[in-house]
């Protein structure tokens, strides 16, 4: 009976005890390798987090958040970098979120499977994973070279180019989940299409769209490469976005490559702050998704 079933399915199943043993050994071996791979991955990633905590926690003082960057040994903090990061990230989201939202609406509600929509979707996906340093170069040529100086605005623009595709993606996905019957109900009430989209569909999907915005914030906060050539970094307190502006990742990059003990300490602490921020946003998003589903 068993042999019959086996031959029909075409799978290679045991003909002898030897083969059965070999199969069991292969399975054991694969299981071991798999455990090994998992342990390596978990321990390496754990080692990264542990290094971060071990080196970053000792420097986590109030001074870090109240003082601007200073000369080595002068007891400076990272306040201007943190504020610079917040400002640039904030402005980039202000620029990127509406554009991403509208593009997402276009893809989900108007474009659907038209040729234009398909190419917009494709290009947006390309931008989503385009090398971030190239976006920095692009904004440099566009907003820095013509004006002759680095600026916080340029940094925010580069980050906006990175943030937008994420928001496009999530907005489209979330709008597609809104049931057709809700749109039909709106249209039946005589609402124009734009009101149906903005006040029914977007409202119904607002949790998911917020998720996208949060993920974009998390992604953009940790980006260094696009800021190197756009906002450059600034060691002084400055809220003027027309001038070069400090940011946490660039400050980390500058400090980590230095030879001064206290700068290196601040680099680690800054790295810890950035990572915690990014991880907390991601955890909030995930918990939020889970809470939304139930």
């Amino acid at each position: 009976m068993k042999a019959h079933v086996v031959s029909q399915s075409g799978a290679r199943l045991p003909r002898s005890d030897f083969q059965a043993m070999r199969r069991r050994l292969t399975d054991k071996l694969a299981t071991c390798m798999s455990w090994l791979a998992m342990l390596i991955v978990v321990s390496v990633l754990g080692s990264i987090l542990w290094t971060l905590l071990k080196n970053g926690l000792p420097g986590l003082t109030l001074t870090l958040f109240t003082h601007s960057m200073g000369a080595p040994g002068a007891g400076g903090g990272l306040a201007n970098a943190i504020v610079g990061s917040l400002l640039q990230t904030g402005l980039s989201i202000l620029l990127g979120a509406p554009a991403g939202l509208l593009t997402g609406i276009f893809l989900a509600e108007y474009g659907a499977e038209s040729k234009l929509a398909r190419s917009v979707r494709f290009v947006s996906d390309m931008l989503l994973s385009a090398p971030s340093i190239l976006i920095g170069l692009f904004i440099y040529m566009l907003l820095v070279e013509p004006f002759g100086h680095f600026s916080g605005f340029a940094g925010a623009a580069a980050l906006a180019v990175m943030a937008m595709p994420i928001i496009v993606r999530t907005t489209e996905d979330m709008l597609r989940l809104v049931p057709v019957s809700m749109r039909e109900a709106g249209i039946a009430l005589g609402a124009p299409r734009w009101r149906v989209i903005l006040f029914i569909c977007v409202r119904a999907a607002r949790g998911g769209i917020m998720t996208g915005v949060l993920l974009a914030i998390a992604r953009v906060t940790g980006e260094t490469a696009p800021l190197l050539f756009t906002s450059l970094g600034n060691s002084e307190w400055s809220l003027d976005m027309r001038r070069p502006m400090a940011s946490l990742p660039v400050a980390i990059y500058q400090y980590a490559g230095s030879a001064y003990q206290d700068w290196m300490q601040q680099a680690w602490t800054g790295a810890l702050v950035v990572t915690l921020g990014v991880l907390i946003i991601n955890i909030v998003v995930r918990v939020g998704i889970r809470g939304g589903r139930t």
Partner: protein
Amino acid sequence: MDGSAEQSAVAAAPQITRRWDGDSLFRTLVVLTGISVLVVLGAIITIMVTGGWKAFSTFGPSFFVTAVWNPVTQHFGAVAPVFGTLASSFLGLLIAVPLAFGTAFWLTALAPPAVSSVIGMAVQLLAAVPSIIFGMWGFFVLVPVMAHYVQPTARHMFGHVPVLSALVSGAPFGTGLLTAGLVLGVMVVPSITAVMRDVFVSMPAVLRESAYGLGATRWEVMRRVVLPWSRQGVVGGIVLGMGRAMGETMAVTFVIGDSNHIGWSLFAPANTIASLIALEFPESPAGSLKLSSLMALGAILMAISFVTLWCSRVLLSRGEVKAGKRS
């Protein structure tokens, strides 16, 4: 289906109100924003190519085949950084793919569900860690280990074996191609694992259950049922990781050693397109041939990464079509 039902409903709605037409205005706004995405990419391509034009026209085709990067003689070529980019990403994948596959296998077939969801979530979270953190970890933790333990041991063991000796030659700085590959590998493991886990899970449970019902072992189910079914998705995820590795700047810049050099040695310092741009850009005045060469390199990187992304997208979307048909 969604769209057509809705469109017919809209077409059927009588145009009672003839006041200020918000609909067409909104539509125009939305379409224009959509087109702006195309414009951004077009502008990126245009700026890279025009910015690199001076280098392309000065050196001609030889730009693509010379390995010189000499700011003093104003002679630049793309081969070394392109080699470094490809080699470090390849090494990274060589490390990341088995680890990611093993972890995904463990998560989907071996781990108890509760543990699996916790570790799966942790791995996904780590995909969001900024790349500069991986760079710092590589620089402060991995580089000393490589310099003090791995490189001397490797040289001691393989230094006299004919072919392998070329691979392990070079001073034990700790930085170099292999270190960059390791850091890139560690960096892309979480995202590749996440993709693999998703495609493995997306396979209809019936297939898995029938295979188990026939008496197949867990490995046989993976090898002969899950993998063939999800092959395209797996490859798509790997290519996606490769795209990420090739365009990575910060993680590599810390550990690659920055030397314009092509060779067999895994321990020799090298550079990648992204690391070269990050390190050399501040010393390239506007309008100089060096800046133009960096832009030309950027154009090459963009071409490489777009081809990669395009491949991954084709593979992943085919996987999706398949999942849709079978489930």
